[in-house]
């Protein structure tokens, strides 16, 4: 008997299906070399996504909260790979918040996708960091006691150079956003509003369908920093916009800035050999003989 393809074990109607489809299509439409695409994910319903794609990418399903760290090691060792991080809101903004914030300081050329469903779904629906205070989705014994974190504002203040919000059921729009994020030179994040029909009976498809609108539909909305001077102002605008939540919920690109050098570029500046002789592109032995030369650095230790 042939092994079957992996069965996506999400609940019927789950927003994760939308993200899966959008992401897969984005990869296909960009014409990426599948074997060079690595999807690194955290733990949660969301974290299972790499296993469910129907195209032969690679998947690294890591630990709860640590996907960004794995992705960093992978990308910097082999910058020729296309690295995408998928994680839950709990994964990336709760247990992983420290990595999320500090990744902003590096601006590595990769893409982070937040499955923002307001709950810790895989552990049965506790409040996630994006759930608002006072909300009481059905699995909470009491209304949520904590305020929510604002992923857009947090990403902006942390230094992400592409900050966007998407909506899981708008598969086409999300696909385009993911393509933009992947193409973006630098660290991109998309906060995807992802209904969890099983646990979150507040932020449902019905709730979002009538509220989301594209920033691009507002005339004058230009999130792209084209000159260094614009940086402060565009960031402040994006911040202010990120506070909008209620009858209207903006989706699309809040901020983009390609003027900031990537971490990879910064390494090259300090160590030009990184351009070609990056770690995964260098042989370290031949027939068991070690190829690295340490004579000169040992000489520094001569007495």
């Amino acid at each position, binding site marked *: 008997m042939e092994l079957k393809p992996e069965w996506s074990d999400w609940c019927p109607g789950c927003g994760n299906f939308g993200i899966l489809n959008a992401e897969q299509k984005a990869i296909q439409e960009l014409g990426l070399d599948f074997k060079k695409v690595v999807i690194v994910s955290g733990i949660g319903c969301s974290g299972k996504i790499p296993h469910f794609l129907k195209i032969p990418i690679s998947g690294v399903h890591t630990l709860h909260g640590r996907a960004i760290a794995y992705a960093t090691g992978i990308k910097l060792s*082999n910058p020729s790979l296309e690295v995408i991080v998928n994680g839950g809101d709990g994964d990336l903004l709760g247990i992983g918040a420290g990595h999320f914030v500090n990744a902003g300081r590096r601006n590595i050329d990769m893409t982070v996708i937040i499955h923002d469903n307001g709950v810790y779904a895989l552990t049965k629906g506790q409040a996630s960091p994006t759930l608002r205070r006072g909300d009481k989705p059905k699995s909470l014994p009491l209304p949520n006691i904590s305020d929510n974190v604002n992923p857009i504002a947090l990403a902006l203040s942390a230094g992400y150079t592409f900050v966007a919000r998407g909506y899981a059921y708008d598969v086409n729009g999300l696909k385009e956003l993911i393509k933009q994020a992947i193409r973006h030179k630098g660290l991109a994040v998309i906060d995807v509003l992802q209904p969890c029909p099983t646990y979150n009976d507040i932020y449902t498809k019905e709730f979002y369908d009538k509220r989301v609108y594209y920033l691009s539909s507002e005339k004058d909305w230009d999130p792209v920093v084209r000159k260094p001077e614009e940086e402060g102002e565009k960031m402040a605008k994006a911040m202010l916009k990120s506070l909008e939540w209620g009858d209207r919920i903006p989706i699309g690109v809040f901020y983009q800035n390609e003027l900031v050098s990537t971490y990879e570029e910064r390494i090259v500046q300090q160590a030009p050999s990184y351009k070609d002789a990056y770690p995964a592109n260098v042989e370290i032995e031949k027939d068991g003989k070690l190829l690295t030369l340490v004579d000169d650095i040992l000489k520094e230790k001569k007495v």
Partner: protein
Amino acid sequence: MRLNWLIGGQQGSGVDTSALVFGNALASAGYYIYGNREYYSNIKGRHSYFALTISDKRVRSFSFTVDILATFDAETLFQHFTEVKKVVIYNKSLEGTKVEYVQNMEPEIAEKVVSFLKERGYGSTVRDVVEYLKSKGVNAIGVDYDGIMRKVAEEVKLPLSVVERGKNTIAIGASYGLLGLGKGYLESAIRNVFKNETFVKLNTMSAELGMESVPVMFPLKEIPVKKERVQLDGNTAVAIGKIYGGLGFQSFYPISPASDESVYMQAHQEVWYVDPKTGDKRKKTVVVVQAEDELSAINMAIGASLTGVRAATATSGPGFSLMTEGVTWAGMNEAPVVITYYIRGGPATGQPTRTSQADLFFVMNAGHGEFPRIVIASGDHVEAFQDAVWAFNLAERYQTPVIHFVEKAIANAYSVIDLEELGLDKLRADRGDVLLSPPPDYARFKITDTGISPRAFLGSTSMFYTGDEHNEEGHIREASHVREAMYEKRLRKLETADREIPEEDRVKTFGDLDQKVVVVTWGSPKGAVLDAMEELNEEGIKFGVVQIRMFSPFPKNLIRKLLSGKEKVVDVEGSYMAQAGMAMKLFSGIEPTHYVLKWNGRPMGRDEVKEALKAVILEDRKKVVLHGGA
């Protein structure tokens, strides 16, 4: 010939540099040196000291009891006077200083000193200490540091406040003067260390005036140096070893006493290598990333390892505690990752800059769930270098995390060694079962007899990893029979490793193993044990020494063979629970009969180990606890 010397002073006052200069001078005069550095978890003001043993032959240890104690402040004298046997150099102008006035000394230490002196009828000034020492036959040489400083200041035309830091060079000069060696070695050591001309001048003059204030008391002759020699501390030995071993990616989060390894690498991120295709010498980059915490550090390194690069991190106890979960992922995903583990005093923040061997059982069992891991421990600087390469080979061959123990006592100590000891040419690479061009139906976790699956790298084909239990393709599985098979496959690798790695590589022996007494040790006490053995042999006391180099998989058969039937099995190690002894008992069924243990945060001195072994061997003392070290 072994000469023991100690210099101390406030952290940040240049003690390290002085000890370096002194050591360099003696090394270029042809001597071998072992130096141990003790310091507080503090940047400026607390007491730090360097203890050196200088020898005409290779030496692997230091001694707490010293021949020469070089001091320029009062605290060093107060902290160390009970340890000096022959000569003490002290600052004459501090004679009136009382213990109680030294505000940067911990009150409990002051208390101890005062009562020691009081019990013997002395007051608590430097003068009292000098009197006491004289009564013990110690030669106390008061040096006029202030006078010399003033002279130097005039000469170099710098304010006294700047020249001040030259004080320790005077102490160096005086120490050097006792040895009667030509001043050229000292002068060029000063030149090498202080590059700036003014400082060279200042220090050369201070040193000379120091030399002039003492008579020659331990005349040494220069020794012709035939072989190329290097001076290696533990952090650097591991750093260079890793680089030589082909390190591609190192992540770290600053922590004592580990971070110097990574900072060294940052400063050497571009290194030369030979392109195997062209034979050309080219530059390559070792990526060194300062992570935001240790959780990130370990997981970055594991991620890196999946791309086929040799990846590592370095940390100490608190950091490794945070890495525990990451290590389990590496175990589950058969990711070859090396963790250099610098043991310092725990638990919690503990004593960040003091040594320990108490983390052995933790590391052997760290992480939830069962999975194979390899644990090795270096006993000296040469092993620290070689083990850095070995660790990568083991990690890649068995596709598993390797934890490489290096204690603070090795990290911050140094040895002068013959370059050839490193055995550069004998060190080889073993990358294990690697598939550069995996077939279309590649399955990362193929079940095999050895438990080892051919490893392909990210980027070469589609493959899957998950920290969940998985099938051969790396997809999440819960089926009980898949669980069982994968669980066993992973643990089988440990059995394979146990079968393949010669136990002779996992245990080293020294001395006469046919004796009825065998000393078992591991890690940093090795040097003190071996050097003490030499001295005890001269006194006619003979025994064998067994050094455990690998704890997982444990060399149970060889240990059993070496130790069964012995009259005395003496466990020498740095923990309260005698953890290596526990491992022996657990895996080999052989329990030590005697113990020499230490847990006060200081490494074992050759002197105290020698005394302890005598007590064990001659007087049958069952357990000796060592207390050496201020």
